[in-house]
């Protein structure tokens, strides 16, 4: 399989990444730089521009880049929907096009165009041979993608809109329904630089499709497809208009299915990372929602990313354990607030005199002192370079604001939810062996011998009343914290630690999900 020029994009992107990677430079880079880079998706911006440059290779790169930046179409929908006949492709494609306000291109719509000699040619061919030759189809597509949106233009000419911009289809995005039909078409499209960002393939068993096709009906006015059993229009006037389309009987459908299977196997390898197969053997609405969610997620990018993770949850939710696992696997620095304060006192640092009295009286240490100790830790080189996992702070909105104002913004926040009974179970059965210092849990990690068991002691802080108090305190503040960290991910902490760890991992590695309005 030959690769198109768009494949040299990733190598250029790797070189770009090298120039942006903060960890290769020994000197300190202020944290605002990578934060700005992440917030504005600078890496993806540059990567897209580089890809476009490599695909088109203009003689004069600077005007081309200016043009590309002004168009600002990095995130418009570019979708391809493939599937066997009767899978509901056209219906899904139409619904997606309406929902995302983008343009739909299919073989029928391309050849039905007026005012185009190419389209007239294609129509003649279709009537004779029941198919359109590849090159003609591709040229029709190119023509359609370049042309400007006629509807907008007429609105402008009637003075109904203030703007003088004219957008081409490239600016509003496109959805291809059933194109490419063959591998040759797929390759040609790729070499022209038309590459989709999401490819959806509908699949269902053949017998279901053959049966379904028998019930297909078309509304001649709107072109929408209905079904006698699954998707019957409510209005009686549409019902009366419906026509039976040609070629829906079993023999015809079986033949088309054979051809489809032959072709699809060779098209799929062209889109390795952006493909998603959705089962068409479910209600239309379900297929639509799956397709919509997929299309609205962005793929994992290669941008340099230093994780700054915040774990929030009531006492006993497993924050320390998860932080330790993360630190071990990804080399992040585990910053536990309570631990930090205790270390500050033990090391007899300049803060120990400030903190000691609070420890003795068992009152909570005031926010600004905690912040100073934390600041000192987070500013150290290893935290800046490798990223950090913070837990135990902030516990309420004021602390969160304080941290935010000083510039320590986490880029992933996780809330671990654990019901009260599980917390009690986890904490009240904790025991420590005073001689070896080993920590045991009567249920999850029982002591090995009876001798050890008899001498085990329980930490007074692990009593039920204490736990209850701490949990109440947490839940009073958690609603505000969740609102403050709008992008936070909530997880069920009531599972075994490795399952929770996997959820946290996927939350860090994948892009933050865009909230659907």
């Amino acid at each position: 399989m030959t690769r198109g020029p768009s494949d040299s994009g990733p190598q250029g992107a790797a070189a770009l990444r090298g120039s942006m990677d903060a960890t290769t430079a020994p000197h300190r880079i202020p944290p605002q730089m990578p934060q700005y880079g992440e917030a504005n998706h600078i890496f993806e911006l540059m990567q897209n521009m580089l890809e476009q440059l490599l695909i088109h290779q203009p003689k004069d790169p600077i005007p081309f880049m200016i043009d590309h930046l002004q168009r600002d179409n990095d995130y418009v929908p570019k979708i391809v929907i493939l599937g066997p006949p009767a899978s509901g492709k056209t219906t899904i494609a139409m619904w997606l096009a309406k929902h995302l306000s983008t343009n739909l291109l299919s073989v029928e719509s391309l050849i039905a165009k007026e005012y185009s000699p190419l389209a007239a040619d294609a129509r003649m061919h279709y009537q004779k041979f029941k198919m359109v030759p590849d090159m003609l189809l591709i040229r029709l597509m190119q023509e359609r993608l370049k042309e400007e949106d006629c509807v907008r233009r007429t609105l402008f000419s009637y003075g109904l809109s203030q703007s003088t911009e004219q957008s081409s289809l490239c600016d509003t995005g496109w959805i291809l329904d059933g194109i490419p039909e063959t591998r040759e078409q797929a390759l040609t499209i790729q070499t022209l630089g038309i590459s989709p960002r999401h490819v959806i393939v509908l699949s269902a068993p053949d017998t279901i499709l053959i049966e379904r096709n028998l019930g297909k009906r078309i509304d001649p006015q709107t072109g929408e497809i209905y079904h006698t059993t699954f998707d019957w229009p409510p209005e009686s006037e549409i019902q009366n208009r419906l026509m039976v389309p040609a070629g829906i009987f079993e023999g015809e459908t079986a033949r088309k299915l054979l051809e489809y299977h032959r072709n699809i196997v060779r098209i799929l390898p062209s889109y390795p990372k952006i493909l998603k197969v959705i089962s068409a053997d479910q209600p239309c609405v379900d297929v639509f929602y799956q397709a919509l969610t997929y299309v609205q997620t962005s793929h994992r990018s290669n941008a340099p990313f230093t994780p700054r993770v915040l774990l929030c949850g009531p006492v006993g939710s497993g924050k320390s354990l998860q932080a330790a696992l993360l630190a071990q696997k990804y080399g992040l620095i585990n910053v536990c607030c309570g631990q930090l304060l205790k270390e500050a006192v033990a090391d007899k640092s300049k803060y120990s005199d400030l903190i000691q009295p609070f420890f003795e009286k068992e009152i909570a240490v005031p926010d600004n002192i905690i912040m100073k100790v934390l600041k000192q830790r987070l500013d150290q080189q290893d935290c800046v370079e490798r990223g950090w996992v913070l837990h135990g702070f902030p516990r309420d909105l004021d602390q969160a604001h304080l941290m935010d104002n000083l510039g320590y913004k986490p880029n992933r926040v996780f809330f671990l939810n654990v019901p009260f009974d599980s917390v009690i179970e986890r904490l009240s059965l904790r025991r420590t062996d005073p001689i070896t210092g080993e920590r045991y849990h009567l249920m999850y990690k029982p002591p090995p011998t009876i001798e050890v068991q008899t001498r085990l002691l329980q930490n007074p802080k692990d009593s039920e009343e204490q736990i209850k108090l701490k949990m109440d305190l947490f839940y009073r503040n958690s609603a505000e914290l969740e609102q403050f960290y709008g992008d936070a991910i909530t997880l069920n902490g009531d599972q075994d630690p490795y399952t929770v760890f996997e959820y946290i991992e996927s939350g860090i590695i994948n892009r933050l999900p865009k909230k659907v309005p």
Partner: protein
Amino acid sequence: MEARSSRELQARNYLEKHRIMDLLTYLTSALLFFRPERPREYLISILERLRIARLSGVALPFFMDNSNIASMFEMLDSSNKGSISFVQYKEALKTLGLCTAEEVLKDDGHGVTFEKFRNEVNKRTQEIWSAF
């Protein structure tokens, strides 16, 4: 497979000829340093200035001006001898992205004075910019 390698070669040649990677590095550094509110508009303005500068021969917007070069030299020359060692000079050029690791520079035995440092930096920057 022939088609693939020739396409890749073609793409690489294109990148080298127009020094795209240097341009993109400069744009990214400018964005991260100045952190404008609207990155696209800012990039467009830089590119417009470049385009005009090339057409009219006006001085190109350098990223590092004379005062920056002077302060960099001072940082390297911590004992104020007036010259820096050859190794330091090469490292400095590498950090600025003005020479590659494999390039062999002449070592004339004496240290590198400020004048020589500045002229070399300016000369190389000019070389890069003239290709845009």
